[in-house]
């Protein structure tokens, strides 16, 4: 049941995309396919972000947009503003909805050449879809723009252009490929890969795939302990620090570290 609840948002996201309810609007034909390598991002002790390769084919002559998108969720943020016209500090909190945790975008041609049809798939278009809680005091802040800056700062949102390489045309289709760099701050979970083909100012095809990021090895064990057996973890962390401190004290025979 718990697993079912966890995958529900992903299923809903895929269903909405299939129905054309998310950015993309009406899709005339769907002669597009994609494949992602690897199928799983393993987050072991040496994980430091990952490169994922996306290959596929799109209708000939179209521009291709590829996105790696996290599940949209609710986000609570602090707002900074001026107090007494002098001091910058936290002035309140704001609740945002429909915020993708991650959004990494690449295209075959610049967005300005793709035109209006591609705009909803850009980062600017993505943050426009974010919903601000009703009656919220925004303190005069351009929330969408500041959210974009915050996410870009954490490398969770990025947009590059012309990284999607288009191959030669064959039977009305063109092969394409790209590599997306996934940040090390990615949270474990299921992510959506979507590719959209735009031609003559219209979205003419799309395709989706999914990829799972999961902790393996030592990080998986440690995370399980920290969240499922938190008291044991806390005591273990304290005891290890105490023993390390004693050993360091005995080895060096003088002062320890910072306090």
């Amino acid at each position: 049941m718990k697993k079912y609840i966890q995958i529900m948002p992903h299923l809903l996201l895929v269903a909405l995309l299939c129905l054309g309810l998310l950015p993309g609007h009406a899709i005339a034909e769907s002669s597009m396919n994609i494949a992602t390598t690897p199928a799983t991002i393993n987050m072991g002790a040496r994980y430091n972000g990952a490169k994922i390769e996306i290959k596929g084919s799109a209708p000939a002559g179209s521009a291709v947009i590829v996105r790696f998108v996290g599940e949209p969720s609710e986000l609570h943020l602090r707002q900074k503003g001026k107090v007494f016209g002098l001091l910058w500090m936290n002035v309140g909190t704001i609740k945002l909805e429909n915020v993708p945790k991650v959004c990494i975008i690449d295209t075959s041609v610049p967005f300005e050449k793709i035109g209006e049809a591609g705009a909803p798939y850009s980062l600017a278009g993505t943050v426009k879809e974010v919903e601000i809680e009703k009656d919220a005091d925004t303190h005069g802040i351009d929330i969408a723009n500041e959210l974009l800056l915050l996410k870009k700062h954490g490398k969770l949102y990025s947009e590059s252009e012309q990284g999607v390489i288009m191959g030669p045309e064959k039977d009305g289709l063109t092969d394409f490929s790209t590599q997306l760099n996934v940040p090390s701050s990615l949270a474990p979970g299921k992510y959506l890969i979507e590719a959209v083909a735009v031609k003559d100012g219209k979205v003419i095809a799309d395709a989706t795939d999914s990829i799972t990021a999961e902790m393996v090895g030592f990080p998986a064990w440690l995370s399980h302990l920290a969240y499922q057996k938190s008291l044991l973890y806390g005591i273990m962390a304290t005891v290890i620090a105490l023993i390390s401190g004693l050993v360091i004290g005995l080895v060096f025979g003088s002062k320890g570290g910072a306090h």
Partner: protein
Amino acid sequence: MTDLINLYLPIAGNSVNCLAILGLGGAVGLLSGIFGVGGGFLMTPLLIMMGIPPTVAAASDSNQIVGASTSGTLAHFRLGNVDFKMGLILLVGGIIGGNIGVHIIKVLRALGNADFLISITYVLMLGFVGGYMFLESLQAMRKAKAPVQEDTAPKKPSAYAKMIASLPLQMEFTRSGIRLSVFMPLVLGILVGVLAAIMGVGGGFIMVPIMVYLLRMPMHVVVGTSLFQILFTCVNVTIMQATQNHTVDFVLALLLLIGSSIGAQVGTKVGKKLGGEQLKILLASLVLFVMFKMLYDLLVRPDVLLAYMGGH
């Protein structure tokens, strides 16, 4: 090569460069070794700058301090520099004050004034402590340079000394070589506990000047006793944070501990070469530097006007 020195921290949810973390621990440990204070209020902001979430940075730093203060307390205990009686009374006061501070923050958060109070308390406390120490040490250094005049007349006790001597429940603190009312360390411990809870720090940099100037303890006993008290405070914080917020990353804490232990060895040697007043003036400069940095952050528009919950 970079893959060899990177390590993924599952609780922090990010990958870190091990050498950078060891270096950070080493730098802060160096300052700690020199001054006997200076961990928490420097380490946490620097970890945040390295991409560690604020809540994980603060909690893991507390975990690191458990190890650092254990070895420090052990070393000072061997030298006879820990006043356990004083440390325990300050600890009791600190726990009471910590609880009062948490409630004050809860009430102020409900009223919407908490962040303003936290920022202003930080700047005022750092400014006051740093400024006072700086001026006092400067005066002492000038006096030391001036020709020595034999003062044959017995010194009159100051009004402050008379006041603390008149308080009830006087107690002998043999290790510190002082006689004080039990209320003094208890009340001051409560005060530090309140401030530490409001500011979200261990309180070492407030406790040390209080021990020196208000409790009038000798400097060598101050550092050992402060470490003893901090050890218990941080054990409590580590277990609370691990069980309630799941924010303790002990791998990060261990890396910081190794770095800070090595840094502290170098710092201790540097500290021995400096005189007491030089140490105080350097510490005062460090505290004032942090205060000016905070003041700058308060006065200059931040790059991003939104922030994740958890940080100041």
